[in-house]
């Protein structure tokens, strides 16, 4: 009897493990999954040995209203999205776009060279280039034969 009680749950556990393993396997091969952003705006991040690239879609925000700050190893993007200034008597039939302040903070994986950071804004898309600080770049150590 003891034998049976032990076997049954163990089999399910094994199936569970197998399923998790399969899911993980397929995730690795598929296109990168788009995660939901925790707050506005959604960010996409690219990287290479030279640095990091962060993009965000912030349509309708004037470039003067966007602030890009780097303090230590955190990047903060903040700004204000303003509504159209309506004349008196105007009325909304439909309002789906949001307005107001926004702020996103991102932990950077390495120190960046602050003076070399470039931010551009084109057609409502913000593009921030963060070059990696020279001293944090991977260095190849030559191995000498003794």
């Amino acid at each position: 009897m003891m034998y049976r009680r032990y076997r049954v749950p163990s089999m399910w556990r094994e199936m569970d493990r197998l399923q998790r393993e399969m899911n993980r396997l397929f995730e690795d091969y598929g296109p990168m999954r788009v995660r939901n952003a925790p707050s506005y705006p959604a960010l996409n991040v690219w990287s290479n040995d030279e640095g990091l690239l962060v993009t965000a879609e912030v349509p309708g925000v004037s470039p003067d209203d966007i602030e890009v700050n780097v303090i230590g190893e955190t990047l903060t993007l903040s700004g204000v999205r303003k509504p159209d200034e309506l004349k008196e008597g105007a009325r909304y039939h439909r309002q789906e776009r949001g307005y107001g302040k926004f702020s996103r903070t991102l932990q950077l994986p390495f120190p960046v060279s602050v003076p070399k950071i470039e931010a551009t804004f084109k057609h409502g898309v913000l593009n921030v280039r963060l070059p990696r600080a020279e001293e944090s770049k991977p260095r190849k150590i030559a191995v000498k034969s003794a």
Partner: protein
Amino acid sequence: MAENVTTMEIEKEEVAPAEGTERTRECACFVPRADIYEVDDQMVIVADVPGVDEDSVEITLEKNILTINAFTEPVEMEGFAPVFAEYEVGDYQRSFKLSDEIDRDKIQATIKDGVLRLYLPKAAAAQARKISVKAG
């Protein structure tokens, strides 16, 4: 002070393809969020189409259906590998049914900072006509 942008703003809604059809372009297609307001004698449609400029947007009016088609180029960052993604880049498509009071010949559109604005002026009020009835 202004409220924070609501989280509703973050997710993009994908266009449902018409039954039995498939898209020919490889990228995704989204429904742009839009505001519509009426001021004085015109309607204004404001739609978010980030990444789109004046050359990559098409606005067509067929019968009383106004369709916005905006195209974006897939983003390829030369020499960079994606680390993580919270949004997808794709085309935009949305249609609106216009009421008869819009003056079709005077529709104007502008695009700035990824926001498309359509100005739809109303036609001069149609003259009320009285039909006289003759005794037959």
